């Protein structure tokens, strides 16, 4: 899988079923054996998976699409992360002391209260990014125009 990935500039299509078949092999291997040789073997496969991640990540960052591959969610996450990063540096969000103002998108439990969509929360950037990726909050953009103006 990795060698194929390294041959082309564009990401390979890797179907979900293909990865699930592999997962089953590794699960069996992990469950069946418990010795140094097999531990080393699994370590090598882990390193290959890590390299696969790096190569495909680099391709997504260069603007290639993962299509309907098993890891297409990477694209959405990176796109959100990239947009947040650029807007953050460009001063599009209200920030102070490592915190950023976000708008609640889905109900969120906070300090004994259930926050509703449209409420605001001033939270640590790292936490805000986590909740942004899971679609619970979105940073308040200062330069968003009205829907049709």
């Amino acid at each position: 899988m990795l060698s194929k990935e390294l041959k082309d500039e564009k990401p390979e299509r890797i179907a979900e079923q293909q990865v699930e078949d592999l997962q089953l092999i590794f699960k069996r291997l992990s469950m069946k054996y418990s010795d140094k040789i097999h531990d080393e073997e699994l370590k090598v496969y882990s390193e290959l998976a890590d390299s696969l991640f790096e190569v495909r990540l680099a391709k997504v960052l260069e603007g290639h699409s993962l299509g309907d591959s098993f890891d297409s969610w990477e694209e959405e996450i990176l796109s959100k992360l990239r947009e947040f990063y650029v807007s953050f540096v460009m001063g599009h969000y209200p920030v102070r002391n490592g915190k950023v103002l976000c708008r609640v998108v889905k109900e969120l439990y906070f300090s004994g209260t259930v926050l509703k969509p449209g409420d605001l929360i001033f939270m640590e950037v790292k936490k805000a990014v986590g909740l942004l990726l899971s679609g619970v909050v979105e940073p308040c953009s200062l330069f968003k125009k009205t829907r049709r103006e």
Partner: protein
Amino acid sequence: MENFLRDPAPEEASKLVLSAYAEKTLCVKIPYDPDSVIFSALLTKYFNGEVAVTFSSDCQLTLNKGDIGNSVAYRGVEVFVGSSAFSSLLPLTVEDLVPILAGIFSDVLLRRRKLSDWEQRILNNAENLGVIREKGLKIPAYREVPLFLSLFYSLDPFVPDISGNPVNALKLVKELNGNEFTKLSDLDESKLNTLLFRLVSSLVKVNPKATREDVIDDRYFYNNYDSLELGMSVLYVMDTQGSPILFDAVMNTSLFWTFVEWLRGLLSRGFNVQVSEEGNRYVVDSNLSPILAYIVLRQAGKAKDRRPVYLRRGEKFVSSRFFLNSPEEGLIYDDKD
């Protein structure tokens, strides 16, 4: 209700609010208006932990605005503050002077009320920080811009045929032997009295009870800011852009001047306000924002009920969160039309 029969106790409320700084995280429930947003942003500015601002859920700290006055409730203790703006309850410093003035004066304009005794006390203290108080005309920025522009920009009072109309505003100044560059301070007492007479005569056309008191008031200035214009600008900005931008301005106070410039940009295109009642809403033909149109309507005794104000935009109608129960902010189009 028992609390509300007592005299306002803003000093006590101020202490109650400051005790919330002991919390690790804080949730504040507020009404949707600029004063309450500025209050919560000021609180957040100096709070170490995370802060949530909700417009609907119950919280540790709750700000209430009602017909009989305002109150602050924190962990089971509720204190009545009368008509005072919530922004006036927080510590007055040079750093936060502009947001506090913006909070107080936006509320004075929105609620069509006089300054409370507490707010006057706060403003007396603000004079030690450089605020200038003088008895003057209630037209915006008269210390900074020519008189005809000041008359042209005036929304409260909205002077029929003069507000929003630069030609007529300049004509009036020329009748006083002035020109495009004449400032209010250039008028002698006799011309000033003539101007006052002309303004009141115009106001009487929409409000028969109008007197000189409607055009003269204690006026407050700080650096280039006129508190009246500052209050109006935050009403406009929150109405059209939403609350986060006000939040950011409290953190970076120089942005308030940008708001003043935005308002002047809007008003300098000229404006008019024609209202009609259509079922459960007021429909206004105007290029102002919904809240600014509402402020003009209130002066003529209109829009006193809870019916929302919509502006006509071609075939569509637009309002804002102040009038609608919506999680959206900025101008909100009525999709039903």
